[in-house]
């Protein structure tokens, strides 16, 4: 029992250790600005990772979020220059939900595997973004909006505040609402849910709409941070988000997962890439590093199983000798 729990929160320990080591070793790491930028980066993938946690708990994936960011960014920036800040933010959320809805309907109501569906939308969304604005980049000048990306309240960056707030909400939804309960139940056994009168299709679809919403929010942050919306943004976004979620110990097979760990994992992931930069690791190697990290994260569940098995065996030995 104990061992498993440690496994559950391994990411926290890893972060602390990693963090202490870096803190001791690198003078640049210590700088407040550096820590701020870590939190900023963490929030960008993190916010999307919150939604992705729900999806992966159901045992699905969403690969389309990167393209969604591109599409939503273009739409938002376009409206901002005409309709103004608040309306554009509302609109982008709405469209984010619609994108999620499209994914959700295909996946839930035509039961098509999620990863292939979202692979399809992955290309469609980005293409739409291209077509909407003919591959031009829209520059955002609204100072208030830019604060969403680069501002800080006190010493804490705005994106991170948004991230934490959403995180708390996500935590409550996942653990203490009927919907969250259904999502996790669905990840455990679809059949059981059907029998228990849960509308599994609806639950699935809503989860993808939620994903769309989270993507919309992270689009705001990303666009604000880059002060412009372009069609070729966030090409590896889905990859980062999934890595973060899985790093957070959410099982690929679904059923189990924790928002808290996802948040920690997001910070860890950002810290790692930050350190790779601090030590000027060659981009080619960075790519490979990230791949290996993901591989480790993926095989984490497997390793846990091994531990459990080993313990069971030893127990059996004992019981037989007795």
């Amino acid at each position, binding site marked *: 029992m104990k061992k498993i729990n440690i496994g559950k929160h391994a990411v926290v320990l890893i972060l602390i250790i990693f963090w202490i080591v870096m803190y001791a070793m690198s003078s640049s790491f210590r700088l407040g600005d550096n820590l701020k930028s870590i939190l900023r980066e963490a929030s960008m993938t993190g916010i999307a990772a919150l939604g992705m946690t729900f999806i992966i708990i159901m045992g699905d994936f969403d690969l389309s979020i990167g393209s969604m960011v591109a599409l939503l960014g273009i739409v938002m920036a376009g409206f901002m220059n005409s309709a103004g800040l608040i309306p554009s933010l509302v609109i982008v959320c709405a469209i984010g939900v619609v994108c999620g809805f499209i994914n959700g309907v295909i996946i839930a109501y035509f039961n098509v595997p999620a990863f292939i569906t979202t692979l399809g939308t992955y290309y*469609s969304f980005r293409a739409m973004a291209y077509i909407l604005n003919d591959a031009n980049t829209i520059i955002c000048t609204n100072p208030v909006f830019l604060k969403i990306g680069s501002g800080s309240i006190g010493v804490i960056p705005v994106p991170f505040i948004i991230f934490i707030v959403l995180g708390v909400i996500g935590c409550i939804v996942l653990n203490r609402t009927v919907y969250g309960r259904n999502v996790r139940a669905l990840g455990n056994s679809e059949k059981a849910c059907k029998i228990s009168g849960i509308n599994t299709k609806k639950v699935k679809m809503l989860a993808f709409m939620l994903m769309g919403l989270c993507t919309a929010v992270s689009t705001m942050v990303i666009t604000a941070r880059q002060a412009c919306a372009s069609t070729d943004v966030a090409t590896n976004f889905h990859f980062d988000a*999934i890595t973060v979620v899985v790093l957070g110990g959410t099982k690929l097979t679904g059923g189990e997962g924790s928002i808290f760990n996802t948040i920690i994992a997001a910070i860890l992931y950002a810290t790692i890439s930050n350190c790779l930069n601090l030590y000027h690791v060659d981009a080619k190697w960075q790519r490979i590093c990230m791949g290996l990290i993901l591989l480790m994260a993926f095989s984490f569940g497997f390793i846990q199983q091994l531990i459990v098995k080993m313990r069971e065996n030893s127990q059996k030995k004992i019981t037989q000798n007795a």
Partner: protein
Amino acid sequence: MKRLIMKHSDNLSLGAVIIILFAVFSVMQPNMMTAFNIKNILVQVSLTAIAAAGMTFAYTAGVFDMSIGSILALVSVVLAKVATTSGVFPAVVAAFVIAVIAGVVNGLIVTKLKIQAFAATLVTMILIRGIAVLMANGADIPLYSMESIKFLSSGTIAGIPFPIILTVFVYVCSYIIYYKTAFGMKLRSVGSNAEASKISGIKTDRMIIAAFTMTAVTAVLSSLIKTAQVMFGKATIGEDFALDVMTTVILGGTLVTGGKGNLTGTLTASILIAVIKNGLNINNVNSYYQQLVIGMILIFALIVNGIKAMKNERQIRREGEF
């Protein structure tokens, strides 16, 4: 006769679509109809079609491979490097060795680490691409003075371009392996019901590894042609390759849930996609629209696929496994 038509309804309908589209494009741009262009289309077909054959096997075994794009790149780099240093033949050998390794690694990750195909190949996709970039090290490796390689792309036997001959050859072999050999049968049984296959004494893990290897090998064949066309080793090619191939296979009517592949369908589908791309190019249509179209086609194919799967489900339920 009627039964025959029913049996091949998918393939026939695909064929019909091809003819219609071809007609439409020809009207818009007369040069579509030229023998030269038709040859072009067929050569372009060969690129995806060959890899798609392998991918059909993967899908049949209930897995699939997102890393073939990266394999394509890695092979082109290695091919160029080895060819320029120690001749064409060793280069080709090296290419295949790499393919086999990549395939086996994919297979091992999926079967031994118990990571599902999607996630595993997502990782290898990153890693292999990383290795390719690392090897190329920022340079495009030219291949001229290697006219013998050129044969792979533009050489002709009895007036027929080599790629087309290769495609035909690959499909004949695949067809025999798929339907006539014990291997093909076991592959189908693994995809259809892994548990039962295991109990019937089939080495399911080996089957899956084999499926990945076949996919990788066919990917190499495609890569050889591609590399010979451009006479370049480049680490960045083939980003969208995996999607194109998957779209082809699914559009061809192969069940994403495994157990049932459709090689003829795959071939027809790859022709369809090539015709669309070529037609749009010839009519000077922007590449984003092409992406959009492909994405849409994939989604459409998925929906059809999903409806089929649901029918299948109902069939099974009538036999009591609700």
